[in-house]
């Protein structure tokens, strides 16, 4: 024992343990997100059981199992939940009951010992609705207006095509509301602003105002047409209803217009489930959010993140590369440049929120406010660029990631052997020719690495964005069909902020939780892929540098 201790082996093992724990934590974290995020789209079975409360009442329960815990009875008692007397530990289950519109409670904990055995009835119905969350119950019949078109098993056959039809109609309505009417609104707004600026300029020519009035009348007419079309679609979508029985025995009539997806998960085959899975996953990636972001898709967030990162890259790459080339190739190396180099390097370690503060004060209020005064006086006091938006967010993040690009590029430039430079100069090339024809192409992969790292950092950064342009729900994407197509002044949605907002600001956190995991998984995936690419490029680069050196 003493020898063992003296050999130092226990210390080595403790160190090994620390390394092992770090690794377990990384993989555990990624596995946790992956499992929770991916399982969200898989249809889970619906269980039915009866809970015998200790006060003698009984409650029929139908829903999906969400969580299981073993806890001491004292904990359960403190939460005001019933428990059987003579026990120390109880198992409790979190069950999603849905039917928020009927009972007001979406989720509930039940103690296992008070439950009957679980059953998984074949015809249990789950509806994903556009409002009030999920519905769990049993399908009774399907109606068209007041006409019953199917009952029992026939009702199921009637249900699915009608849900699909409602989905089509909803998409058409969405298209009209979002794009067609949106375009008209944009033009209307422009006319209003034109009018204001005419007034502000003291324009007296009535013809100018008349022209605007004509344009407006024309748009009003177009709007009326769309409005009629929309009204008709609304009428058509309101045709079908379904009647279902909820667990408290009530008969509920639900307009099929509100049903996004209907399913009988307990009878689904594996491939049906797979279909359901990809359908939901597709909606998640390509759809717009519903119900205060707790349901539906995250397309605007993905789009906003990508747009912002793209704009940032456009700004940061040339600036970062120029700065690095200056520092490495043109500036006179000495203590001063060394100080600058260390400072730039250290800026990468400055908290991102500080950049956000700078962005808000300098870009948004100062630069943006000046732009508004100069170019958009007709819109004041409503700010155009003097408010957080896409452009300022991109610029702020560009500033934040500049050090990353500068450091990576400089590293690439340092790795190029002197001999290459000298060879080029000896052949009579000027400094510029050496630089742009020889050095920069050789250092290009390093720049690429820097850019990828910058993009990975920018994609995951949230704190500064909260100050300079991100919102929980943007009414419009930053790119659309209205001139000038790319709207730099608009606010946008962002994956990281979406996680924060849905997970912490949402009214129904429990319901939103799976979606947050899925969003987190998306973000982690993007960032890991970007980083792995950067690492791969870096490694290849090192090999190449080695080869050149030899």
């Amino acid at each position, binding site marked *: 024992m003493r020898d063992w201790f003296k050999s*130092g082996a226990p210390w080595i093992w403790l160190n090994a343990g620390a390394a092992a724990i770090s690794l377990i934590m990384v993989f555990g974290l990624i596995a946790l997100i992956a499992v929770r995020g991916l399982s969200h789209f898989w249809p889970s079975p619906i269980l039915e059981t009866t809970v015998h409360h200790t006060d003698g009442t009984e409650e029929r329960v139908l829903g999906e199992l969400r969580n299981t815990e073993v806890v001491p009875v004292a904990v359960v008692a403190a939460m005001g939940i019933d428990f059987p007397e003579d026990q120390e530990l109880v198992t409790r289950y979190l069950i999603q009951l849905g039917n928020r519109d009927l009972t007001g409670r979406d989720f509930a904990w039940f103690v296992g010992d008070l439950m009957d055995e679980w059953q998984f009835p074949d015809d249990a119905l789950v509806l994903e609705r556009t409002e009030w969350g999920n519905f769990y119950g049993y399908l009774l019949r399907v109606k068209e207006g007041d006409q019953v078109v199917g009952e029992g098993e026939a009702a199921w056959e009637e249900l699915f095509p009608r849900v699909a039809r409602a989905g089509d109609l909803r998409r058409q309505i969405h298209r009209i509301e979002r794009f067609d009417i949106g375009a008209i609104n944009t033009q209307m707004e422009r006319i209003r602003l034109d009018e204001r600026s005419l007034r502000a300029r003291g324009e007296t020519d009535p013809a100018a105002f008349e022209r605007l009035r004509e344009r407006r009348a024309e748009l009003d007419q177009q709007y009326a047409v769309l409005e009629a079309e929309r009204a008709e679609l609304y009428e058509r979508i309101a045709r079908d209803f379904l009647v279902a029985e909820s667990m408290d025995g009530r008969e509920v009539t639900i307009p099929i217009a509100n049903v996004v997806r209907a399913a009988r998960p307990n009878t689904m085959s594996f491939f049906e489930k797979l279909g359901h899975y990809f359908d939901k996953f597709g909606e998640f990636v390509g759809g717009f959010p519903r119900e205060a972001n707790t349901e539906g898709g995250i397309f605007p967030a993905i789009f906003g993140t990508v747009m912002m990162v793209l704009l940032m890259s456009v700004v940061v790459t040339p600036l970062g590369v120029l700065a690095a080339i200056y520092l490495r190739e043109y500036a006179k190396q000495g203590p001063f440049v060394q100080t600058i180099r260390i400072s730039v390097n250290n800026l990468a370690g400055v*908290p991102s*929120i500080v950049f956000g503060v700078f962005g808000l004060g300098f870009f948004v209020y100062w630069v943006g406010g000046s732009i508004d005064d100069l170019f958009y006086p007709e819109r004041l006091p409503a700010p155009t660029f003097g408010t957080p938006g896409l452009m300022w967010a991109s610029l702020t993040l560009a500033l934040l990631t500049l050090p990353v690009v500068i450091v990576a590029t400089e590293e690439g430039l340092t790795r190029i052997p002197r001999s290459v430079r000298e060879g080029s100069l000896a052949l009579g090339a000027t400094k510029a020719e050496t630089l742009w024809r020889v050095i920069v192409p050789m250092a290009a992969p390093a720049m690429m690495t820097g850019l990828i790292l910058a993009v990975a950092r920018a994609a995951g950064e949230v704190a500064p964005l909260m100050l300079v342009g991100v919102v929980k729900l943007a009414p419009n994407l930053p790119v659309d069909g209205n001139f000038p197509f790319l709207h730099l002044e608009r606010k946008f949605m962002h994956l990281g902020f979406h996680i924060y907002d849905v997970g912490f600001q949402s009214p129904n956190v429990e319901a939103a939780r799976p979606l947050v995991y899925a969003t987190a998984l998306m973000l982690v995936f993007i960032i890991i892929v970007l980083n792995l690419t950067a690492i791969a490029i870096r490694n290849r680069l090192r090999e190449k540098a080695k080869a050149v050196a030899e």
Partner: protein
Amino acid sequence: MNEIGTEVTPQAGSNIKSLLPKAKQRERLRRWRGFKDGTSRNVVWAGGVSVIVALGLIFVYLFSEIVPMFLPASIERASEYRPPLPEDARIVHVSMERYREVAFALAKDGSYVFFRPATGLPILEGRLAIPDGVEVTAFGHGEPRTRLSVLGLSDGRALAVRDAYSLTYPDGVRLVTPKIEFPLGEEPLPVDPEGRRLIEVAIQEGVRGFAMAAATDDGRLLLSQFTARRDFMTGRTTLDVDTVELPSLDAGITRLLLSIDLRDLLVGDAEGRLTYYDVSAPARARPVDSRQVLPDGFEVSALSYLLGTVSIIVGGSDGSVTQWFLVRDDQNVRHLTRIRDFDPHPAAVTSINPEYSRKGFITADAKGNVALKFATSSRSLMMQNVVNERPISHAILAPRNDGLFALDADDLLHYYEVDNPHPQVSFRALWQKVWYEGRSQPEYVWQSSSATDEFEPKFSLVPMTLGTIKAAFYAMLFAMPLAIMGAIYSAYFMTPRMRGMTKPTIEIMEALPTVILGFLAGLWFAPFVERHLPAVFSVLILMPLTMLVVSFIWAKLPRGVRKAIPDGWEAAVLVPFIILTGWFCVEMSPHLEIWFFNGDMRQWLTDQGITYDQRNALVVGVAMGFAVIPTIFSIAEDAIFNVPRHLTQGSLALGATTWQTVTRVVLLTASPGIFSAVMIGLGRAVGETMIVLMATGNSPIVNFNIFEGMRTLSANIAVELPEAEFGGTHYRILFLSALVLFVLTFFLNTAAEIVRQRLRKKYASL
């Protein structure tokens, strides 16, 4: 350049035909290339320098945003005139409206005038209905926001007036129309039933109606309450006056103050005392507390409430200016307490008047000085002589603190422009304990906004600074052992194959968005910890124990088994045991709770008097530690890995065990690198925003309890900056905290970088 060969030039007349372009063309090409070279240099120079300047601009800009907070206030003379009142009228009251377009002056003979403050030109003149043979003997005013004044008359009656302004925008241009109002009727109301001369009056309009306090020339103290009653039958309003006589004082009364809730009456007297009457039930009103507020021989020459009528500013004939308010003691009795002293005046203080929307005030003295002061920050923002050596009878501020009137003894009105945007900030207000209104002792508090107008903003950065330190401390406590020990193992013991996998994995972890860590910490880990508290602590004990036990058993295993797994794979061997231990601890958690903590550890902690928040420092420590581990690991690992081989080989050759080599040679050599790793990790922990934002309750508390949350500087910025008014004091204080973060992390990183560079040089020389 060395001549390495002779230039071959085509000789004239020779038959060698040169393929080179013509000399002229070459010249042009050379010039073109030279031009490109120069352009490239200039472009790169301009781009590089401007990028570096832009980065430097961050610091300069942040700094420029905070400087205005620490500048003193300034005033600038605008005009000076006699208000347009009858020649012999003595002015008792002046005021200004919000936009400084109209001012108001009231004279002792009952004449009043509205005039332009800039020029003194009259707008509206008039005279109050003061009966013949009666003179105005006292004057008082209510909270400035109520614009209420009262005139005490020689026949024991009083008249309340209000200078009111209505705003209209004909043709889009602002028009301020003044008028005089009589909230208690145009006729003076009897205050003293005996009809004696009133020598001091005070008025206040509260939610319960109007109240007046008055002192008579025979030394009695009276309190009148006015209740308006509306007759439902006739629709007429009648006013009930209810006057009680309060126990009087021995000394002559010099000043009266009534609080806006009509509960407190304060009396200043000629002997330098301040007496507090509780008048919440007028019939039972009595002096509760009396304090000597000035040295012997001086009298209370000016007395004023600040906004909200909580703080009392006492000005003495000795020139002193002090702040007092009522503080509750243990028996719930309120006592007058001296809160703070301000820079004194060189002569007797003659006038004190509060600001309309902040806790600041203006003071004036008998030698013609006016001063601007601010209560919360104890700042004296400026003092200036505006009337040469003559007393100032009144000094008042405009509602938006952008102008002031000083009225001298000859009734000459001096009008000044005031620039006093940020009086709330001082070193003391930010970093020291401050005694805020309504608190029983000086405290560190951050509370930047509230629903009421009378709110006193509390801008102490101490809670957030301590919160930042607390979060970083627990994060480092978690991260340092794991990261450094892991780095030692990875750099020195691990097989290259496993190291090749470990390093990139942990580096990827560094790139993980902190919003994800924060969300997991807040939504998954915090509830988990709350539910499995015993597990958290048993893991702390059991985990190292497991490792030691496994190590011991491993040493006792037969050689053959040990040989199967070579050295350097210990970490892999430990993985299943660590997972098992973790699982075991979680499974045992409810049992431990039953055995030791009456079934519910959280409840048990609460019973022990320990506050438990679900999102607490423990959760933040783990989550932020998780974010910091890769940073520390990666840099420390590099430092250890790059320790020159011959050092360790020498040590081993001399017979040291590997562990001895690690502790005595490797770690000692690499310690600067490890130190810089810790510094950079600390820098990251200090500035991290999303994790603390999501994994704590963000309450700005001042303690180090691991089971309570905190608010950090960075989270505070994220929460409050979007709401802060652009350019306001709150906005600038948030900029200050950003600058503090910037400087702190920049300093930490620079220190770390310098240490690292020295280390690199040392390695190179070894």
